[in-house]
């Protein structure tokens, strides 16, 4: 069972629908016990970094971190991936999980923000999440803040600068783009997560 964590940020239905389409067993829940009992966890989310505050108010953050320590597969999507870093300039009061180093920052003023649309992804060889994904495949992004390039970066895109589009270490995976909205490429990535 894959638990999709509901903390009130954005449209979880589209993520669930994509997993349903792949035939995966998923549950959308805000219950820490259900999240703790799942085999895999997906932390989605769109919108403002401050909405991650709900994870701390509900105690879900501890359940998520315990799962990460126990090497339980975790996929953060968009804000969910940003949570894996140390924090974001968007909201300094809410900390990130600090699984990856650095803070999320705004795009340079030379480019349009938010970064909305299909951008090509430079894929790092050896990624488990991006297995079988062709170099420069297109994925759908919609965000104003970006995560820095780190050693765990497995996919990068460019918009005024190069930023982390996908990260992974052990069983922690993160994607800044929306696989549930990235057509066949996105579905293949979610399928890879199901098979981790």
């Amino acid at each position, binding site marked *: 069972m894959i638990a999709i964590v509901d903390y009130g*940020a*954005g*449209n979880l*239905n*589209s993520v669930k*629908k*994509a997993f349903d*389409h792949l035939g995966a067993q998923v549950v959308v829940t805000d219950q820490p016990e259900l999240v703790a009992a799942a085999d895999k966890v997906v932390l989605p989310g*769109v*919108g*403002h970094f401050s909405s991650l505050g709900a994870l701390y108010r509900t105690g879900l953050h501890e359940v998520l971190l315990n799962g990460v320590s126990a090497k339980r597969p975790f996929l953060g999507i968009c804000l969910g991936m940003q949570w894996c870093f140390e924090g974001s300039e968007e909201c300094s009061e809410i900390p990130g999980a600090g699984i990856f180093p650095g803070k999320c920052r705004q795009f340079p003023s030379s480019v*349009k*923000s*938010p*970064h*909305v*649309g*299909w*951008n*090509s992804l430079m894929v790092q060889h050896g990624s488990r999440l991006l297995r079988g994904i062709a170099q420069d495949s*297109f994925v*759908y992004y*919609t*965000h*104003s803040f970006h995560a820095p390039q780190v050693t765990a970066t497995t996919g990068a895109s*460019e*918009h005024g600068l190069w930023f982390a589009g996908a990260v992974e270490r052990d069983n922690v995976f993160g994607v800044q783009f*929306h696989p*549930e*909205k*990235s*057509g*066949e490429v*996105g*579905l293949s990535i979610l399928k890879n997560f199901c098979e981790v």
Partner: protein
Amino acid sequence: MLTKRIIACLDMDGGRVVKGVRFKNLRDAGDPAACATAHAAQGADEIVLLDITATSGNRRTLLDAVRRTARSLFVPFTVGGGIRSLEDAASVFDAGADKIAVNSAAVSDPALIGRIAGRFGSQAVVVAIDAKRIDETFEVFVAGGRVSTGHNAIQWAREAAAWGAGEILLTSMDRDGTQSGFDCELVSAVAQAVSIPVIASGGAGSARDFIEVFHRGHADAALAASIFHFGIENIAQLKGELHHARVPVRWPC
């Protein structure tokens, strides 16, 4: 590299996709869910469903169409038409939309943009502007192009962005359904006035029109309806031509 988006628009009336010329003379173009899936399979980067005769009476029809369309669609999906409150928006998101488009209601109550963005994020709020040339300026019209507001379209786009809009969907009423080309002057003026993406709409008739609106109009995305429904131009072929003209597009997709 961020690509230019080609967006297929489905104008819906009473649960069916229709298309008119200059907002009039509607022709039937099929079932929304089937049209959306077909366009996505051909390479549409995004689907917009607009309920053009939205009244409270057919709200149920709209939500049902949104639900059916969203079920098998894995590209971004925007829904507009008759969204007047945060509750209206919430029910459309709940039915499976990724973004909502607001038009008339945002003009009469701009704070609505902020309320929806506050709850669902700016990325989920598209402000649709119907603009018409009046003398030397572009004026905003509402209620499906029937009512003049006296507002300047470029100024309104700036205000909408300041209220928290994530994108502007800009329709030239003079060009809508005519297949005579986008109004590049209008698109360029708005694209340069705001930092959020601008979707050009109204007038698409050929691949050349799309090339023009990206190069000369500085559009981030272009939307078309009539040319796609009746097979005049298929999206895959259009994207191939854009690619050859060095417009960055998701191709092959």
